[in-house]
């Protein structure tokens, strides 16, 4: 008798779990006129308006002199030579509210100066002024690079706090420059390559 009760209870528990899980992703409510179906997270992830591939090559990296070009911008060409990669995640209009989580590995490599820019309201955007605002009044180059890295981490945190509503998109830029002096320590800068691993994870706002 006891065994039967236990089995019955277990079946009930199992059913309740199964039904809640099932409702989580394919909740179907059938009534006489309407039906509600929850949706999958569909999205697009693009870099410079092209779909992001598993492996990608960016071949417009330019090496600069930290003092002449970054701090002083002697040639007034910093805006022209910096490699700008624009990333955009766009949630499908039928997708549920979703959290976006980015992880970018390789930002702190010797010889590479990456600056993440996540902003929508500063127009027109002046990259040199923005960069100077990050390193502000810091004097030592090492401390300036540390400040840039800290800025990037802050930007990633800010990006990961974003919750996208259906149809909304999230855009951020990575500005890339090569540091001529640091690269010279490693080898011939013309032959140097760097790798960035950019991971994106979307999950429903309430689902994780």
């Amino acid at each position, binding site marked *: 008798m006891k065994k039967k009760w236990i089995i019955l209870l277990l079946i009930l528990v199992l059913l309740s779990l199964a039904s809640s899980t099932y409702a989580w992703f394919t909740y179907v409510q059938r009534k006489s006129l309407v039906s509600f179906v929850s949706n999958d997270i569909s999205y697009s992830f693009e870099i410079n308006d092209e779909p992001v591939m598993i492996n990608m090559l960016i071949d417009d990296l330019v090496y600069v002199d930290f003092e002449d070009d970054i701090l002083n911008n002697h040639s007034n060409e910093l805006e022209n030579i910096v490699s700008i990669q624009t990333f955009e995640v766009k949630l499908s209009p039928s997708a549920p509210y979703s959290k976006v989580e980015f992880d970018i590995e390789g930002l702190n490599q010797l010889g590479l100066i990456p600056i993440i820019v996540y902003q929508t309201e500063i127009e027109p955007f002046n990259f040199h002024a923005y960069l100077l605002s990050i390193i502000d009044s810091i004097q030592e180059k090492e401390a300036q690079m540390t400040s840039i890295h800290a800025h990037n981490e802050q930007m990633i945190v800010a990006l990961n706090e974003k919750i996208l509503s259906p149809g909304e998109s999230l855009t951020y830029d990575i500005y890339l420059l090569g540091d001529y002096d640091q690269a010279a320590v490693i080898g011939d800068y013309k032959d140097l*390559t*760097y790798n960035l*691993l950019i991971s994106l994870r979307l999950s429903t706002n309430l689902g994780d």
Partner: protein
Amino acid sequence: MKTKKIMLLYISICFFVLSLLSVSFAYYQKSQSTDITLETGEINLSISFYLDDMVIDETSIYYDQATKSYTFDITDEEVLNHISKVKVMVHVDTDIALKMRFKLLQSYVVTRTYHITEGETIPPYTRIIQIPNHSDTYYPYSLFKKGWANTLILGDDGYLYVKDTLLKGDYVIPLIEGGLTYYGQSHQTFEETGYVSFNLIVEVVQSNRYEAIWGINASFYNS
């Protein structure tokens, strides 16, 4: 025995529930990653010379191997190598922003040939002439016509500096499109013919490096 069966049942249920959970989470999480390789940009530059639409190069009869220059007629519009038929295209394919400068190497030579009169022979007289500045349609001190509307700044070194930065891209620049005829003197006693020995130097540099490489400062481009 009974206890074993119940334990087995529990374990089966746990596995079943776990499998359901993992399916539901997988459904609600999407992830992807991309491995980006960064490398330095490249620049490809080439120059093509044309007479009308015919490509000419170092093997052409109009190319002088000794002086490493092309010869174009400047006085007779009927000949195939007349300056009006010259076209020079510069092809720049660049991954990075550039500054560009070029110099026209040109030597205008006019020969005066005297008509032979009875009992008198006068050898031809050859001289190098200077071309005055024409309108903005033509290059400074040149008979060659600009094919490109970009603002140029003439430096003290004779180079013409392109004011605007060439951003990343593929450019086909019509540097020269034709030229002006030089009208030599023609008299009862002599007739003048002329030609130009011509070549071109085109240089490009990463746009933030013109100070170091070319020795000019930023204010030069604002002059």
